[in-house]
């Protein structure tokens, strides 16, 4: 090799005059221009495609809520992008071991069990496909890397199929209405999130229509729901409602502390055409491991479905139940204190309760201590665990107060209780 090796710049300097050198250098303008054009395209096309907010006839908040309530979209298919950022500390492996431990405890460990799968929706960004054809047939697929988890409801059957491990979960024999109810509870589409949020609308909430937006290529109204209470950690909820069908297309929950949305679920693509019948037609693939739901797990399925939709549990304190479960304590009888957005769920873990680090012991105990803030009050002392949305106060005598409220409100509730 060596004899042929030559340094081009020196030989160029010797033989070429300046003009030729410039002409050669000018050729490099082409790749640079290509990069420039590409960068401009990447930067500008979304801006140009965003044709501004559509002009729609004015509508009052009341009319819009009625529109949502009346909305009866039977046939649709679309892609939903869900980003959840509860501000939980990055627990890495510990988090997954906690959640898998929790779900394994309640389910039977099949990876096709909806309760195991839908827990994943609680953190990170996910792409979900939904399809519906009437009340009897729905499908929800969680798109994963080179794999997919599908939950298919067709008539009496509810199938869960995990393509990565080729395992199937089957639950049959529910009548259609019951199955539909279950289906509704599990997924976290903007539609369901919005309907749950509207249930919370009462005297403690201000609702207004603020402008319009384009979601998934459709014109939509922006409905803004704001808690009037100042103690709530919820800043505001924005729902983009399709102007034609009244179907909520995008759901955004921003925390009072500001920053990125805690929950952002919206359609990126939607079609109101009837999905192909084969979409809902599921036959167990050859060689798949099948787990039959014997019926006794109904409760756990419903309960765990709530993992998938953290937003709709606001103010109901359900995450508290999950927290309690994750810590390995069965929740006692649960009470709800207060109304509206400031409501706090409280329950007694029974006995000496949770988590001071030394009691829980070991690595896990130290970890718990590092997460919480110690607080004291009339009730004694306890630990406050914070996320961007849900805060929980666990007193040293085993009482748990959970809500989408800030620390002071929790302490006040504990003092009163």
């Amino acid at each position, binding site marked *: 090799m060596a004899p042929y090796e030559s340094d081009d710049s020196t030989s160029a300097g010797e033989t070429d005059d300046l003009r030729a050198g410039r002409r050669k250098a000018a050729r490099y303008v*082409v790749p640079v221009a290509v990069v420039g054009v590409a960068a401009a395209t990447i930067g500008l096309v979304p801006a140009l495609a965003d044709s501004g907010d559509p002009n729609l006839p004015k509508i009052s908040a009341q009319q819009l809520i009625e529109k949502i309530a009346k909305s009866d979209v039977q046939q649709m298919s679309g892609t939903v992008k869900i980003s959840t950022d509860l501000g939980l500390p990055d627990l890495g492996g510990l988090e997954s071991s906690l959640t898998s431990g929790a779900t394994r405890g309640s389910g039977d460990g099949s990876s096709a069990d909806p309760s195991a799968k839908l827990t994943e929706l609680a953190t990170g960004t996910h792409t979900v496909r939904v399809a519906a054809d009437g009340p009897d047939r729905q499908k929800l697929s969680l798109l994963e890397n080179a794999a997919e988890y599908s939950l298919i409801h067709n008539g009496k059957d509810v199938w869960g199929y995990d393509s990565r491990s080729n395992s199937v979960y089957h639950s049959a024999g529910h009548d259609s209405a019951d199955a539909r109810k279950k289906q509704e509870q599990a997924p976290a589409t903007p539609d369901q999130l919005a309907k749950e949020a509207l249930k919370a609308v009462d005297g403690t909430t201000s609702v207004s229509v603020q402008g319009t937006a384009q979601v998934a290529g459709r014109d939509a109204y922006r409905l803004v729901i704001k808690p009037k209470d100042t103690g709530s950690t919820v800043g505001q909820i924005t729902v983009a409602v399709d102007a034609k069908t009244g179907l909520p297309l995008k759901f955004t929950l921003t925390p009072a502390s500001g920053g990125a949305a805690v929950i952002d679920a919206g359609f990126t693509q939607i079609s109101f055409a009837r999905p192909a019948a084969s979409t809902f037609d599921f036959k167990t693939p050859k060689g798949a491991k099948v787990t039959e739901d014997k019926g006794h797990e109904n409760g756990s399925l419903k309960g765990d479905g709530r993992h998938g939709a953290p937003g709709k549990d606001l103010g109901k304190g359900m995450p508290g139940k999950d927290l309690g479960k994750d810590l390995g304590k069965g929740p006692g009888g649960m009470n709800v204190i207060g109304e509206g957005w400031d409501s706090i769920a409280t329950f007694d873990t029974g006995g000496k309760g949770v988590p001071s680090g030394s009691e829980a012991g070991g690595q896990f105990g130290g970890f718990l201590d590092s997460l919480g803030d110690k607080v004291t009050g009339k009730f004694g002392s306890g630990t406050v665990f914070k996320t961007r949305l849900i805060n929980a106060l666990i007193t040293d005598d085993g009482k748990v107060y959970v809500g989408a409220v800030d620390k002071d409100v929790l302490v006040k509730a504990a003092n009163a209780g």
Partner: protein
Amino acid sequence: MSRAEAASPEETVPRAEAVRGVSPLWTFGLLRSELLTTFRRWRTLALLAVLAAVPILVGIAVKIETGDGSSAGPGEGGGPAFISQITNNGLFLVFTALAATLPFFLPMSIGVVAGDAIAGEANAGTLRYLLVAPAGRTRLLLTKYATVMVFCLVATLVVAVSALTVGAILFPLGDLTTISGTRISFADGLGRALLIALVVAASLMGVAALGLFVSTLTNSGIAAMATTVGLLITVQILDQIPQLHALQPYFFSHYWLSFADLMRDPVYWDDLTKNLGLQALYAAVFGSAAWARFTAKDITA
């Protein structure tokens, strides 16, 4: 290098004809001679043999492991994509083999062929003779790139055909279940397998252009190959580092595994189009950079 001996009988003929004048057909002659040189090389054949061996190994391993009736792969779904499905349908071996070879084996062999394209000629002292013919540097470069792309396609098809053969011998075939849980016929599945092979071949466009550009920078074929493969490994590692997530969508390897989206029903096109767009962008940027370098370069060997 054995290239000069191997190539000369084929190459002298079209080049002698070409002296009479440049016709569009002549380009095909150049391409044909390039293809013949590339595919007659022992190195190329060895690369293809390695690629063909991967599905055989995967197939036999899965067959042995599942000989007692257990399902393939760990229960939690580890290993390459689709591996748990192979025992039920041999066609899935095609997808598994492509998923297993795409991160490294395929781009590495493309890097070897592309890196050698210009630098190898320079190293062997044959580049100046190629340029004596009235082809022009631009046309030679395009022909080289076309040859590399043909190699991409052939390499991918070798993996796919080898996997299909092994899959058909060792495992049952028939209707298959898409990863969305719907069923498609075997013919439909075969069509999707072909489409996936084409998408995988197209996914290698970026590496091919990058390798060709590196190849114009040096006169050492080995250096160009090593640089290309080194860049490939570096990018793959960077693609795993979470702190770089803002940059990762622009890495040529980032959307490679999106070919699996073709097995969804309906097909999820978002990442596929992103992948193809990104590959086209890499091809344009590094192709034009290679052109700028090669047409302005002093050929000393």
